C-alpha cells in the first residue's frame, strides 16, 4: 500500500517561489496526472516527490512515512524521464538490471525480474543492444522497463511521451494504460498535454503558476471547469468564451446579441454583473446536424468563416458578438465559406464565469 500525500508543499529557488503550498492526496493504485502549461511547476513538484529536489516547506508522505529528508534511493519510487536517461554505456539488459545489481540481489533473481519486465514491454529482441541503437519508442519502453523491474511503491513519469511523434505517442499512451492495469501501482504522471491527461488519468490535477487550480476526474474537470483557465486548457478544441453582461432576465453581449440565462445560473447572477459565457463546440451545432437537446436552447444565425472537415464531423469557425467561435457539425455536408447557418446552442451545457475573478459561478 503506498499512498502519496503532499501537505502544504512549497518550493523556493532563492527568493523565487515556484510552488505555492500545494496539497495533494494520491490514493494507493491511483493514476494521477499533473497537467498544466510549461513552467507551472509540475516537474518541480514531481522531483520533490522523487527526492531529486529539496523541499522548502511542507511535508511529503509516501506509504506511511514522511520522506522529506530521505534520498531518492530510500523512497522506493521509480521515475521515467522525459529524455529517457538510459545509461548509454550499458546494454538494454544491463540498463534494466542496474537497480537490482546496485541492491546486490543475486544474479538469478536479477535475470528473472529483467526477463519478466522485458516480456511485459516486448523488449526481448533488443536485450543486448545499447540504447544508441534503439528507436525512440524502444528507448521509451526500456525506460519504463527499468522503472518496473524494482516493483516500486510509486511510479513517477515526467512528460515521458513528449519526444515521440504523434502516432507513437498515441500507441505508448495505450501501453502505459495497459501497464497500469497489469502492475497495479500508484502512478503520478506529469504532462503539458491535456489529451494525455484526459485519456490516462483516474484523476486530473491542473496546475498553473505553482498552484493547483482544480482536481477531479476527467469528466468532472471537462464538464465543470472551475475557472476560465481550466475551461480553455482542458478539452480540444478549447471552450468558447463570450464576455457579456447580465441584463433583465437575459444576457447581453456586444453587437446586440441577447441570450436567455442558463437555468442553473438564474438565481446566482445579479443584473449588471459582468460575466463570461462558456460553451464547447459540441454544444453549438447547425440545426439538422446536431444532437437532440433536452432543456433550453437558443437559435443563433452565424456565417461560417472557415470549415475544417474531419470526416465524422466538421469544425466551423464563426464569429459571434465580436469573438471567434468554434462550432461543430455532425453528419457533415459540405459548407461554403461565408455560408450563413442557423445554430442551436445547448443552454443546459453552458457555464457562466465571473468576468473579474474568472471563476465559475456555479
Amino acid at each position, binding site marked *: 500500500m503506498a499512498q502519496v500525500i503532499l501537505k502544504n508543499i512549497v518550493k523556493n529557488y532563492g527568493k523565487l517561489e515556484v510552488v505555492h503550498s500545494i496539497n495533494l492526496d494520491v490514493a494507493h493504485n491511483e493514476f494521477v496526472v499533473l497537467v498544466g502549461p510549461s513552467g507551472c511547476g509540475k516537474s518541480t513538484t514531481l522531483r520533490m516527490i522523487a*527526492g*531529486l529536489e529539496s523541499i522548502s516547506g511542507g511535508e511529503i508522505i509516501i506509504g506511511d512515512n514522511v520522506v522529506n529528508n530521505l534520498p531518492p534511493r530510500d523512497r522506493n519510487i521509480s521515475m521515467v524521464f522525459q*529524455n529517457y*536517461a*538510459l*545509461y548509454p*554505456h550499458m546494454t538494454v539488459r544491463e540498463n534494466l538490471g542496474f*537497480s537490482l545489481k546496485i541492491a546486490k540481489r543475486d544474479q538469478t533473481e536479477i535475470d528473472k525480474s529483467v526477463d519478466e519486465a522485458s516480456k511485459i514491454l516486448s523488449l526481448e529482441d533488443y536485450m543486448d543492444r545499447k540504447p544508441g541503437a534503439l528507436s525512440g519508442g524502444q528507448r521509451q519502453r526500456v525506460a519504463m522497463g527499468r522503472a518496473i523491474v*524494482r516493483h516500486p511503491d510509486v511510479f513517477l513519469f515526467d512528460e515521458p511521451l513528449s519526444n515521440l511523434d504523434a502516432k507513437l505517442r498515441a500507441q505508448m499512451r495505450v501501453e502505459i494504460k495497459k501497464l497500469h492495469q497489469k502492475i497495479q501501482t500508484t502512478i503520478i504522471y506529469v504532462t503539458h498535454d491535456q489529451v494525455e491527461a484526459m485519456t490516462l488519468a483516474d484523476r486530473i490535477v491542473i496546475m498553473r503558476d505553482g498552484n493547483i487550480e482544480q482536481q477531479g476526474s476527467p469528466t468532472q474537470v471537462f464538464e465543470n471547469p472551475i475557472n476560465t483557465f481550466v475551461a480553455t486548457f482542458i478539452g480540444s478544441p478549447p471552450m468558447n468564451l463570450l464576455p457579456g453582461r447580465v441584463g433583465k432576465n437575459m444576457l447581453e453581449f456586444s453587437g446586440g446579441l441577447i441570450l436567455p440565462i442558463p437555468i442553473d445560473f438564474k438565481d446566482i447572477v445579479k443584473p449588471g454583473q459582468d460575466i463570461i459565457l462558456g460553451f464547447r463546440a459540441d454544444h453549438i451545432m447547425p440545426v439538422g446536424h446536431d444532437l437532440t437537446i433536452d432543456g433550453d436552447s437558443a437559435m443563433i444565425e452565424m456565417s461560417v468563416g472557415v470549415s475544417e472537415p474531419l470526416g465524422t464531423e466538421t469544425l466551423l469557425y464563426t464569429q459571434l458578438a465580436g469573438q471567434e467561435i468554434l462550432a461543430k457539425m455532425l453528419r457533415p455536408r459540405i459548407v461554403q465559406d461565408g455560408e450563413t447557418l442557423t445554430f442551436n446552442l445547448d443552454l443546459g451545457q453552458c457555464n457562466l464565469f465571473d468576468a473579474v475573478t474568472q471563476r465559475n459561478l456555479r
Partner: protein
Amino acid sequence: MNINRLSKLKSFFLKVSHHVTLFIAMSIICIPGLWIVLNSFRPTVDIMAKPPVWVPRGLNLDNYRAMFGGAGEGGVPVMQYFTNSLIISCTSTIIALFVGMAGGYAFARFRFKGKNAIFVGLLLTRAVPGVALSLPLFIVMAKTGIIDTHFGLILVYVAMNVPFTIWLIDGFFRQIPPDLAEAAEIDGCTRWQAFWKVEFPVAKAGVASAGIFAFLTSWNEYALASQLTRSTFSKTMPVGLRDFTSEFTINWGGMCALAVLLIIPALILTFIVQKHLISGLTFGGVKG
C-alpha cells in the same frame, strides 16, 4: 553527353588535386619526424652531408649502441632518464586527472559564487609562458629544497596541467545530461556510486583525452625541466638530449637516437588511448 564527360573529368581533377595537397601537407608535418628517425640510424658524415643524402644508405645501430654504452664512448644514462620521465609524467598526469575530474565535475554540475571568474582565472594561468616562471620557480624550489627532485617537477607539471584538464573534463561532463545521475540515484545509487557507475564511464573518453594531453605535455616539456633538474637522478629525457652537446661539437646521431626513444612511448600511448577516444562517446541513452 559532353557535359557528363566534362563533370566527370572535373571531379577527377578535383580528387587528384585533393590528394596532392594532402600529400604536401602531410609531408611538411611528417618529414622532420621521419628525418630524426632516419638520422638516428646514420653515421655523422651522412647526417652532416650537404646537399642532404635523400636515399638512405649504410644504416646501422651505432648511435644506439654508443648511447647505451659506457660514459667514455658517448653513452648517457638513458634508462635512468627514461625512468625519471616515466615516474614524473605518470604521477603528474594521474594527479592532474583526479583534480581535473573533481574540478571539471564541480564546474559542470554545481552553481557557486564566482564560478565564471574562477574558471577564467584558471585558464588565464595558462597565458603565462612557462619559461617566465622558471626563475621564480627555481628560487622557490631552491629555498624549499625540492629542486632537482621528482617531487618538484611533478608539482610543476600538475600545476601546469590542472587548468587544462579541468577545462577539458568540464566540457565532457557538461554534455552528459544530469538526468543520468538522477536516474542512477533513483535506481538506488548514492551520489558517489552514481558518479562512478554512470557518469564516469560515459565521460571516460573525455578523461582519456585529457590524460593524453597532460601526459604528453609533461613527457615532452623541456624549458622548465632544464632549469629545475640538474642531476641524473631527476633529469627527464628531453633534458637528457642536451648531454649530446659538448663545448665544440654536437652528437646529432646520438641526439636523434634518444629522440626516437622519446617519441616511441608517446606514440604507443596515443595509439592505445585513441581507440577509447573514438568508441567512447556513444550517447543515445538520452534523446538524440
